[in-house]
């Protein structure tokens, strides 16, 4: 019986060729990562960015009818008027705060949140459809452009890694290691990989990352350990009287909001209790973030550095220490 040969190449030869091709791909990826670490992310991000932007535009209501957009524009103008009025009273508090700080001998600790700078809330805050206009407007509203507004293109839990991808990169002046805040001045992460038009923001709640915080009214110092998805835990002594709803502050001089205690797990046999907390916002629903533009590049965020170079402020911890106490 005769059979028609389906391929001119023997099967083993074809298998060997494909195996060599796969091996070459692996070698190429390794070499690129060693010598040009941003090459692959830059290429694939360039491909993906138009799709992300399109998705964001659709979610933002770019496909709404002109009537709806006009109505929304009117509503936003009214809201801006309301906020301008509120901001005037905030100005008074800000001035009072500055006076009290100077009385206490710490005039350098004046508020630098993005809520300040109300002088710019006049005609410049017109509703604008383009992303760059919104960014420019918001930067004007922020404290002398100290923080930049960025749209969140990809967020957890859909991504496998606990990080955000935002639409501002080196071209907009973002540097690696910059602090990233959610609206409401809540510290949520840092930029770890900055490309031309996009940046990866590693959330502080990433499993294994730690961050120093102050818990409760007594400002109990503790180390927040990330549990993923915007959730943290910290170990504190039993007698600290921390309760659900207590606020968590960033343990730096700025005392920025970090989160709220959601639960306290205590065991009488254990001298420590576990405090679970999360930020006031839901990281799964974040659409905009603010990127600090005053930060300098930090060594642990350099993609060429290894994990061992992580400083004490944000560092990976051994898996044994990240286990939640039952």
């Amino acid at each position, binding site marked *: 019986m005769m059979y028609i040969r389906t391929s001119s190449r023997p099967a083993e030869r074809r298998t060997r060729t494909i195996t060599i091709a*796969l091996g070459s791909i692996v070698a190429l990826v390794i070499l690129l990562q060693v010598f040009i670490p941003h090459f692959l992310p830059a290429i694939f991000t360039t491909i993906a960015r138009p799709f992300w932007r399109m998705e964001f535009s659709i979610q933002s209501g770019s496909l709404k009818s002109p009537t709806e957009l006009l109505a929304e524009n009117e509503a936003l103008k009214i809201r801006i008027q309301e906020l301008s009025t509120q901001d005037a009273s905030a100005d008074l508090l800000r001035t009072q705060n500055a006076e009290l700080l100077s009385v206490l001998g710490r005039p350098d600790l004046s508020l630098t949140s993005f809520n300040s700078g109300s002088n710019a809330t006049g005609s410049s805050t017109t509703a604008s459809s383009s992303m760059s206009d919104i960014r420019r407007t918001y930067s004007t509203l922020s404290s002398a452009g100290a923080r930049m507004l960025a749209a969140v293109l990809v967020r957890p839990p859909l991504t496998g890694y606990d990080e955000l991808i935002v639409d501002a990169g080196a071209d907009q002046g973002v540097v690696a290691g910059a602090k990233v805040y959610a609206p409401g001045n809540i510290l949520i992460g840092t930029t770890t990989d900055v490309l031309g038009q996009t940046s990866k923001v590693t959330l502080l709640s990433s499993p294994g990352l730690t961050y120093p915080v102050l818990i409760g009214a007594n400002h109990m110092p503790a180390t927040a350990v990330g549990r993923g998805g915007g959730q943290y835990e910290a170990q504190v002594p039993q007698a600290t009287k921390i309760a659900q709803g207590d606020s968590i502050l960033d343990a730096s001089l700025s005392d920025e909001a970090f989160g709220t205690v959601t639960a306290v797990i205590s065991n009488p046999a254990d001298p420590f209790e576990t405090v679970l907390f999360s930020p006031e916002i839901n990281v799964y629903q974040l659409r905009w973030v603010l990127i600090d533009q005053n930060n300098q590049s930090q060594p642990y965020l350099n993609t060429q550095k290894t994990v061992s170079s992580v400083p004490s402020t944000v560092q990976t911890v051994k898996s044994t220490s990240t286990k939640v106490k039952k």
Partner: protein
Amino acid sequence: MNRTVLFRIFLDSALFVTIINGWWFVAFPLVIIGAWRFYYTIEIVLAGIMYDALFGMVPAVGVWGYAGTITAFGILIILHVLKKVVR
């Protein structure tokens, strides 16, 4: 164009969309179907590399930043061996 080629193009397009959006849990079964149905689906490895390039490859997460690539290779090799045993 026969149905096999059309199915492969459809599968690759679906894989591309899921990877762009970071839907690894959708990409995973597609990858398994592709690796089982076709002979040496190299695009699976490319999908893994693309996923890691987009969302991983950050030193803070260490080797986990390459989970997509490693998984793609694992699936490809395991299914290749499995197919040899079964067929």
